[in-house]
């Protein structure tokens, strides 16, 4: 009975934590213009758009998020050995671990931004201190929350769901996976919509205009603090939905016992087919709704 309650609790908790982690991860990457859309911020000064974005080019999202999550989880894992293993100790240790990894994030973010701007000398890009220091606390806050959620998720997967991997290894896996999901869903909204709001809605960004990003915002010059405000309303939520759904459905498929060891495989296979049907229906809808591109 206790095992079933722990599984149920773990499934609910893991789904919730993963959903939140997805939202925070996408906002973190957008606040720092990280990952793939970074190429556009990088390209902008070369075609004369000198900007005030935070250019946090740490690396692709998967390794960067894996580093924040693994550092936080490693420190928390070592601290729980000192504190004892109850839930309160895990929470405190995770907060300390996430705070430490946030310091690392800040250091890497500052080094990246300054170095990237220094390499833009030929294009007369000025290095503004305030365009680095204003978004940095926001970015760090989202980074802290991502690392904290992933660390707690790793503890939940290890002790409530019963995954045999150690906590830091789970955090490493979650970090790589959330980075891959975040850079392939949330970033589209930042890269193709937010950076190019002055182009009409309803089309991809042609390669010929890439780099011609918006440098002016709702009022005055745009800085990276405005970005999560915009992307969190749609991009962040869909990223959270993707990662939350992955972790939740994976844990949920293990709640049943009708076919022994093959139960979860059968459940996940059915889910895969259902998702394929949804992809088909969405494509039918989008084609009908938007139609062909016509000359105008």
């Amino acid at each position, binding site marked *: 009975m206790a095992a079933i309650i722990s599984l149920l609790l773990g499934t609910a908790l893991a789904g919730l934590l993963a959903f939140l982690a997805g939202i925070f991860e996408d906002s973190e990457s957008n606040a720092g213009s990280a990952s793939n859309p970074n190429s556009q911020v*990088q390209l902008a000064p*070369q075609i*004369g758009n*000198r900007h*005030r974005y935070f250019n946090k*080019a*740490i*690396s*692709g999202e*998967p*390794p*960067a998020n*894996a*580093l924040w999550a*693994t*550092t936080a989880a*490693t*420190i928390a*894992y*070592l*601290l729980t*050995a*000192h504190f004892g293993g109850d839930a309160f100790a895990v929470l405190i240790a995770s907060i300390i671990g996430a705070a*430490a990894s946030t310091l*690392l994030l800040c*250091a*890497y973010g500052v*080094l*990246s931004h*300054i*170095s*990237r*701007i*220094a*390499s*833009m*000398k*030929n*294009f*007369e*890009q*000025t*290095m*503004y*201190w*305030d*365009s680095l220091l204003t978004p940095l606390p926001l970015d760090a806050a989202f980074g802290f929350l991502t690392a904290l959620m992933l660390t707690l998720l790793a503890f939940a997967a290890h002790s409530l769901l019963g995954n045999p991997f*150690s*906590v*830091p*290894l789970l*955090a*490493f896996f979650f*970090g790589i996976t959330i980075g891959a999901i975040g850079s392939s869903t949330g970033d589209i909204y930042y890269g193709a919509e937010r950076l190019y709001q002055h182009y009409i809605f309803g089309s991809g960004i042609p390669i010929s205009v890439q780099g011609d990003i918006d*440098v002016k915002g709702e009022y005055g*010059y745009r800085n990276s603090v405005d970005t999560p405000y915009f992307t969190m309303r749609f991009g962040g939520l869909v990223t959270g939905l993707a990662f939350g759904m992955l972790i939740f459905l994976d844990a949920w498929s293990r709640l049943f016992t009708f076919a022994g060891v093959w139960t979860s495989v059968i459940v996940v296979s059915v889910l895969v087919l259902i998702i394929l049907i949804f992809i088909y229906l969405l494509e039918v809808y989008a084609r009908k709704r938007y139609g062909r591109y016509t000359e105008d």
Partner: protein
Amino acid sequence: MKEISIHTLFGAALLSGIAGIILIGHGISIGIVFLWLPFLSAANSVRGMAKYGLGTGNASIGYWGAAVGATSAFVASLSVSCRSTPFLYVAAVVAISLVIGLATGVLADKVIRMKIPRIELNSAVIAVSTALITAGSLLILGSNYGLYPFIYIIITLAVLHPYNASTGAGENQKRTLTLALVEACMTTLVIGIVAMLASGSAMPISDDVAIVVVSACGLVIAVVAWYRLVKSDTYEIKWTGYSPAEH
């Protein structure tokens, strides 16, 4: 400006890395300063490969190279004890990572036909350098399997980040390598702190404190040197303002 060649840097990194590991193996934890050169050499080779804009981002090159190095060091530690015979352990780690790195580089050159000069050399250099760093970190942190992912990923970022951060038309080797030194110090600092927390760590706590102190000193010096280069390279540094063209 004349650039440091891959061979020179790698030769220095190999000797210094081996020296560092043997020092750490004999309980002299300050030997970690000798592990900074492998960081530089690996970052330089990431630069050498990513400069040609190949089909993969330099993040991929970094985590690929670190995966070769770290996997070699982790696997080798299963049968060759890194504590009792550090020299044999280093030899095994270097040999394994050299073979895998070189083989992959040759395959990328001959089978996949990438047109990148010296891709096989650069692959081998990244693999061996990261393997040396991983081996040194394992000696400090002890063989606690829970810490392996942390060791792998923190080295990955320190190796791939210097060139990734400096990319742009005004990039030069001197600034990239100085940034690599900054990040090497930062990484050993974090490794020292984690070693302090790991109570079952292979070293007494005073040695871990020594690592943290040395890394912090190195970090301060490296950041000052790096910022000096940044100041001379940047177009203009201002507190705030708008671009002049539009005002």
